[in-house]
């Protein structure tokens, strides 16, 4: 009995000692951690002027925290240990639904993720209200710094699953700043259903722009080297990494059908980077048919806009038109139609541009004239009727009616009210009839 009592007493003393030991250890660790944080703040920082007592996490509930001016909010959040941050996260979850909660959760996670993505990730994964969790996830993912992207991707995967739009969003953002890391992430989390094809295309481009050799190896490893879309993406990325090498490769493989789109991509890239190099590139192509195909692939789907809207002088219809028409019409035939269509300038501006073209190409240019998109026929027909040169006017009218989206009935209606003589109207009606006949024959 006495032995048993002694044994029990010994165990009790041991428990007391161990508890005291670890308590002492924890207290010391926290004290040192707090000191370390204080030491690491640069002396130049105005934040050191903030009275820590005013923003001590111990005194604050989540709502108090969010009412603070940003610097104090930041300092409080930064100074707080993990448990305090978790406690605040818990308080946010219990707030009544509404704009205040949205504002609070957004502010909290946008900031927390920037300096403690691990805690942000952990607390988000523990949020039970799915709508709130989505909001917190959205904010954290958006505000996350580059080095936290993997944490965010893993959070999306664990919280929302593989098909999550947010996972796509994270990887999409991430690849623009660190494509090799995204490739590694995809390797680490293979998709059994192979739904990565869209992502792969962009990723290969980004990988190649970062490191063409690594991109090539990654494609080979995944058996994607021969997929035309991926090869094209690779070439685009390679162009960004080493323009001369990519251009030279494409010119050396012009006969490869898989290079057709890449020829256009190179030409477009060169047009924006160096018109001189673009000119050399087009002349280095073997024949007019290839040059024409290159122009088509490069510019057919290019979004054009006026400089005052986009700030891009090279993307205006006029700038592209100027450049294309420096080359023989055989290169660009059919390409000007889109340029006329997307011009937002008054129709008179493009008509004046056509009038100024050298006679050698003016007819070819006029033959592609198209009424500008989404303008009333009456408004765009009148300027053509006012072109002084009768030959050019007829060429323009033929092209105008030929390329109209709507049937020429609308043109007839517009013509009926046009302030021109009956004779002129008859002449134009004859042109319309001739275009209709041509259309019927086609």
């Amino acid at each position, binding site marked *: 009995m006495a032995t048993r009592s002694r044994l029990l007493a010994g165990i009790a003393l041991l428990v007391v000692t161990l508890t005291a030991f670890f308590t002492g250890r924890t207290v010391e660790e926290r004290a040192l951690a707090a000191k370390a944080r204080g030491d690491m703040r640069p002396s130049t920082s105005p934040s050191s002027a903030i009275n820590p007592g005013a923003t001590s996490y111990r005194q604050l509930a989540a709502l108090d925290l969010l009412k603070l001016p940003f610097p104090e909010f930041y300092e409080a959040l930064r100074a707080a240990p993990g448990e305090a941050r978790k406690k605040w996260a818990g308080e946010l979850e219990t707030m009544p639904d509404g704009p205040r909660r949205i504002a609070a959760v957004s502010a909290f996670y946008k900031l927390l993720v920037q300096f403690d993505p691990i805690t942000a990730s952990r607390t988000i994964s523990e949020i039970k209200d799915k709508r709130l969790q989505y909001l917190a996830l959205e904010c954290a993912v958006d505000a996350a710094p580059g080095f936290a992207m993997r944490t965010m991707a893993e959070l999306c995967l664990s919280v929302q699953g593989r098909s999550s739009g947010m996972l796509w969003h994270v990887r999409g953002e991430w690849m623009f700043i660190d494509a090799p890391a995204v490739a590694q992430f995809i390797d680490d989390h293979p998709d059994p259903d192979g739904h990565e094809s869209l992502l792969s295309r962009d990723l290969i481009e980004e990988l190649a722009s970062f490191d063409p050799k690594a991109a090539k190896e990654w494609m080979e490893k995944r058996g994607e080297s021969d997929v035309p879309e991926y090869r094209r993406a690779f070439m685009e990325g390679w162009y*960004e990494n080493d323009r001369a090498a990519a251009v030279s490769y494409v010119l050396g493989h012009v006969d490869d059908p898989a290079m057709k789109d890449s020829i256009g991509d190179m030409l477009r890239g060169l047009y924006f980077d160096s018109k001189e190099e673009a000119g050399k590139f087009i002349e280095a192509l073997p024949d007019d048919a290839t040059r024409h195909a290159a122009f088509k692939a490069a510019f057919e789907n290019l979004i054009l806009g006026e400089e005052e809207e986009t700030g891009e002088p090279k993307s205006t219809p006029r700038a592209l038109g100027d450049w294309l028409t420096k080359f023989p019409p055989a290169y660009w035939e059919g390409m000007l139609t889109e340029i006329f269509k997307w011009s937002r300038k008054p129709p008179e501006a493009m008509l004046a541009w056509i009038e100024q073209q050298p006679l050698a190409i003016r007819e070819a240019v006029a033959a592609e004239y198209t009424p500008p998109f989404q303008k009333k026929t009456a408004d765009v027909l009148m300027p053509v009727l006012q072109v002084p040169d009768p030959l050019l006017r007829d060429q323009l009218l033929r092209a105008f009616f030929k390329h109209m989206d709507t049937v020429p009935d609308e043109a007839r209606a517009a013509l009926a009210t046009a302030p021109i003589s009956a004779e002129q109207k008859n002449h134009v009606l004859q042109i319309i009839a001739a275009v209709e006949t041509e259309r019927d024959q086609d």
Partner: protein
Amino acid sequence: MLTGPRIQVAILGLLAAGFAVGGFQAGRHSVNAAALSKQTGETLVDSANLSRRYRVLAENPLGQGSVREIATVPFSELYDVLRSASREQLLAWARDLERMPRGPRQRAAVTAYYKSLIQVDHRAAIEALFRAENLNMRDLAIDALLKAAPESIWGDLAEMMVRLPYQGRGAYREDVIWNWSRVDPEAVSKFIESHPVNQEEDRRLFSLLCNWPNIDPAAAREWLEADPARQTKDTFRAFVTSWAEVDPAAAINYAVANATRPNFQEAINDLVYQFMRLSKDDATKLMLVLPAEQAKAAMGNVAHLTGAVLVGGVPEGYQRPFDEVARWMVSLPVEFWSESIGDLGQEWLKRDATAATGWFNQLSPERRDVAIVSFCRVAESESVEQVMTLGSTIKDRSLRNKVLGEFGRRLRTERNEAMKAISDLPISEDQKAYLRTVMPEDSSGH
């Protein structure tokens, strides 16, 4: 005496107290201060190495290149550097980032800089954007700063978005309105009123009304009703679906009361589809009180979306499984779904013929006929085998002949061409002969 129980307890108590104090002190001294300091440092600023980077940045504020490493500097350090920097320094850094060679390093640096700067000094961030010359980088910077912007500055950002030159570059304007309207929709409505845009349809209204009814439906409704120019298809859609999230009954009443209003059908379609996904009882309630035409159109939309191939930006679970939707559709009166179930059936048969056929076959005979007739009426020639298999089981003989005859007639515009086209169908000669026999004169079935 010393061996008495009280004495023993007292000694034991003293020993326990001594061990507790000793253990506590031993615990404190056992902590390796250097190691902990390093560990804490890593948590906060990711090692002393990064602190060196901080010093480079802080001590060389206008130095070319130092800011370019910004993507590797943790926010804790960056925050202090940015706060201590003058406005001119901040703008100079922004300029330096613009001039980096384009590529991933530049994108990473620009993103990191603006995500941080917007939290530290949003006015400097805005000024930097106004001074930006590299417009591609400006776009990237706008994207980055909108993602990390504190909730209190949406108004300033909205103002910036309407004043920045080159408005034709992007659609970020709606992003600002969307985010701002989640926290202060009334302010957004006033902003929109005071900053009209010269566009056919102002997309900002849609963004606002996606959120406002969730917070204050009465105010949102009053604002929407106050100006007919605000009542577009998209604003009605946003308004009713957002309202339905917080008050389904009120949204149903509103939808029914406005069902025949111009621009309102898409709102009904969206509302029915939303309820069908999230609350089938509400979907049923709404269908039963809608005018017949609007209800049928909404059902058509449900069938179409269920089988449609939707690309990009579709929330998870937006499309429900075929069997779930089909079950809900046929739980309603026949007239609601008799025209649209065929659309759903055709897509389902394409993707999982066994399941779809099984579903058709388990319907009551009357409903089964209606569903198969509906399918045959929309089926394309590529579904001919299923049309013949299922169509031949329609119980009403004259209806069967009519429906299958119409299917054959739809193969071509001209009847004689349609007759010829039957020859190329992958069905038996008897079936071809049957289709020719029952084919009507014109495509309307006569």
